[in-house]
């Protein structure tokens, strides 16, 4: 079965989804990603969906789950590169994913993760 590669980039994990999302592939990704976050002590996850041309409610839910799970493991998830047609369709479908962080591309997502890390570390230092 196809698997989605998870790459380590410094303190972050980069997941680039390039296959047509199969339900089982999505479930495997959830399992592997949570394990890697723990084993690599990752601080953030970049989920690159720029090659994905359809996000239905199942895949949308999976993206939401990944974000919530990684948050519990103290890693922020940023969804990057969503296509305009996919964004318009998701909103019409009723799935605006309000709790998920987004960025235009991997670079912007990385900047967002770094900034989030800085504010949270500052927060800890001041306590």
């Amino acid at each position: 079965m196809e698997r989605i590669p998870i790459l380590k980039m410094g303190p972050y994990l980069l997941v680039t989804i390039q296959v047509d999302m199969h339900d089982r592939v999505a479930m495997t990704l959830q399992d592997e990603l949570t394990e890697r976050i723990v084993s690599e002590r990752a601080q953030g996850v970049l989920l690159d969906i720029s090659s994905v041309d359809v996000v239905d409610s199942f895949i949308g839910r999976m993206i939401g789950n990944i974000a919530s799970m990684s948050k519990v493991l103290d890693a922020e998830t940023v969804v990057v590169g969503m296509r305009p047609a996919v964004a318009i369709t998701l909103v019409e479908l009723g799935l605006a994913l309000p709790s998920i962080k987004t960025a235009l591309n991997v670079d912007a997502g990385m900047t967002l993760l770094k900034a989030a890390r800085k504010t949270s570390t500052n927060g800890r230092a001041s306590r």
Partner: protein
Amino acid sequence: MAVLRDELIGLRSMDDIIKARQLVRECAIFLGLSLVDQTKIVTAASELARNAVVHGGGGEMRLQALNDGSRRGVKAVFVDNGPGIADIELAMKDGYTTRGGLGLGLSGSKRLVNEFDIESKPGKGTTVSIVRWK
């Protein structure tokens, strides 16, 4: 109403959901739908194909490219022989779910298409028909 293309595929496994998506996309491109309209009908088809596989215990999708003289459109009909839906009105509500999903399958796909028809009786299966015009 002229039918320019007519295809039928079975919906039994998760792989068939992906096949259904690809087929609908091809048909939408063939008719020259805009990228946003393509994405909308493909997403709706994905929802309904998954419903047929997961809740309907399998079924089939009939896909047609239509031309009614003044406009062209993609029509997809999903038929399953599952348990059916007792209260369609309730099932069409946002957030209503039987399996712990988001409950956007039916109501959400209705918002993505121009025409949406559903017929279902307990024990007799479910038929959902959608059309997206160019």
